[in-house]
């Protein structure tokens, strides 16, 4: 028994040392599932002679939980804007100063001084998108660039509207529609928001995800939705268009960053610089169908994607989008209560 244990321990030690010996040319990426373009990884491996391993996660909370525990062995992580501050405050990210890197000049100035990482000391843009409304314009001919589509529905749409059950997105849209700021704790605004949601809900048919097919088959005539999903709806049915609510709409952005306890920091820095090159950023977008925040990348995208209004925000609406950030816990508690009351 004892001897067997010794042998096991020696084998483990041997494996560990060979692992360390190989670590010279490695990079371990921890990213959302189905989100890392395989040809991007292949190109990086061939250019820098580095062996890349990609591991998936399915939510910000999963990723955060795993990294908090330590001993993970990852170098790169891709948290959403609303979580970046948590990662930074908990000391999980390395201040790698991507803003000093060679390719940083390609980052769209719009995404440099972002609220969640002013001046980009920790993160580089990976992909970004917005939440708005998708409307079947064969059913409703009026203005679709408004949250009134689901909060004050026109008669043509009443009873045919779906709303995604995402508390953060829907609260953001409703608060901006009632004239408030995201994450506001202003009770007067919130009361109006609650009353508006309760009233509007009677005109919704459902609160579901997975609505691409339902829109294409006509179960819904409108839905609160993400821009990339809306592009896929238009592919399925050409009369479906994406509206950017002019009262204000939420933006999300996933950002690549280096972990503080990364073992392959130099390779990780090479990777951050690498994804800021337009031709490489385009590989990410071509794979996952969202915009990437790197100027010049559209030249490397298929033309129908480079010009899609779902991906390229029309100028008149581009300043109406605001990042979804994490709200203060006491504000969050009120939002949860409103959300529960709306669905009780």
């Amino acid at each position: 028994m004892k001897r067997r244990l010794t042998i096991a321990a020696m084998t483990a030690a041997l494996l560990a040392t060979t692992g360390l010996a190989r670590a010279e040319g490695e990079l371990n990426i921890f990213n959302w599932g189905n989100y890392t373009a395989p040809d991007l990884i292949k190109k990086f491996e061939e250019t820098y002679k580095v062996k890349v391993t990609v591991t998936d996660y399915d939510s910000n909370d999963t990723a955060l939980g795993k990294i908090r525990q330590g001993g993970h062995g990852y170098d790169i992580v891709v948290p959403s804007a609303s979580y970046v501050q948590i990662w930074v405050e908990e000391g999980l990210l390395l201040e790698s100063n991507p803003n000093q890197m060679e390719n940083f000049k390609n980052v769209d100035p719009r995404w440099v001084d972002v609220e969640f990482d002013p001046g980009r000391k920790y993160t580089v843009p990976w992909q970004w998108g917005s939440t708005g409304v998708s409307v079947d314009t064969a059913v409703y001919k009026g203005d679709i660039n408004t949250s009134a589509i689901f909060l004050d529905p026109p008669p043509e749409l009443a009873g045919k509207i779906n709303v995604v059950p995402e508390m953060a997105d829907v609260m953001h849209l409703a608060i901006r529609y009632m004239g408030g700021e995201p994450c506001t704790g202003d009770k007067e605004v919130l009361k109006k928001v609650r009353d508006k949601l309760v009233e509007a809900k009677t005109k919704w048919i459902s609160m579901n995800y997975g609505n691409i097919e339902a829109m294409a088959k006509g179960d819904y005539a409108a839905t609160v939705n993400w821009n990339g999903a809306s592009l896929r709806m238009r592919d399925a049915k050409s009369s479906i268009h994406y509206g950017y609510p002019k009262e204000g709409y939420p933006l999300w952005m996933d950002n690549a960053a280096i972990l503080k306890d990364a073992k392959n920091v130099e390779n990780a820095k090479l990777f951050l610089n690498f994804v800021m090159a337009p031709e490489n950023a385009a590989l990410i977008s071509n794979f996952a169908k969202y915009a990437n925040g790197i100027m010049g990348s559209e030249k490397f995208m298929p033309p129908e994607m480079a010009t899609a209004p779902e991906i390229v925000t029309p100028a008149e609406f581009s300043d109406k989008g605001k990042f979804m950030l994490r709200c203060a816990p006491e504000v969050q508690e009120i939002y949860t209560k409103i959300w529960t009351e709306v669905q009780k």
Partner: protein
Amino acid sequence: MTTAAEIAARAERDDIRKRWLLSTPALVIIFLAGIGPLLVVVLYSFLTPGPYGDVKWEFSTDAWVGVFLQRDIFDDTLGIADAHLSIFLRSVRLSFATTILTLLFGFPTAYFIATRPERTQALWLFVITIPFWTNLLIRTFAVQEVIRNEGILNTALIWLGVTSTPIQILYTDWAIGIGMVYVYLPLMVLPLYASMEKLDFRLVEAGYDLYATRFQVLRRIIIPLVKPGIIAGSILVFIPSLGAYVTPRVLGGGKQMMLGNLIELQFGAGRNWPLGAALALTLTVIVTVALLFYVRYAAHSEQRHG
């Protein structure tokens, strides 16, 4: 010199020790997989929510108060948490309805199978279990495909001229009912069949010989004899229905929360793990009470029938 009695006593002690030793694996599994996690949930329900999910290690009973009472967001008065209450009631109501409907459909089905020749019974049972080969989510989406406005059912009805415009079934309570009954029916049929199979059909014949009507035979002979199956089936359907949320969400449209959704919200976007834990435990308590009720009821009816 040791006496025979001492030897016997030692043998018995050894025996008891050996038995405990041998059951250690089972005890470890029960503790690690059953009691341990439950204790973690109990512990979390008495802590303070952390700012970004997770918990702070400070004792608090807020979560438990929050299950039943809530401070109004706007006028700060303390009242009953009617949102939680109505969500609880909705889940319980749905579970009752599902249990009764599956019983109504499952009873004749099980009776039909039990009265087939023995060789074909196995085939019928096999047919009943086929849906279990597929994931619940996929079956639910399949139901959606059948009842949607441009789905098979409505297309057939229009073709037959029963209706000229599609009937809206999807995203109504009807859709939830259809989905729940479809999903849970096998759980009712199988225990019912198990007790009907043992039914002595000579008793049924005797009943008819004594001029009992069909209804009397059913009420006074068959139902009392298959009662254990009815109760077991009802429990198997009722308890998972309480926690069901895929089916109501996909088919009912998810406009109204079920208990499962409410609990999920607290662990996800709501970032209030202690409240989620307290809600989950409240559900456990409801289920336990239902089970205790069953045990007493079953014992009671056994006494009567001796």
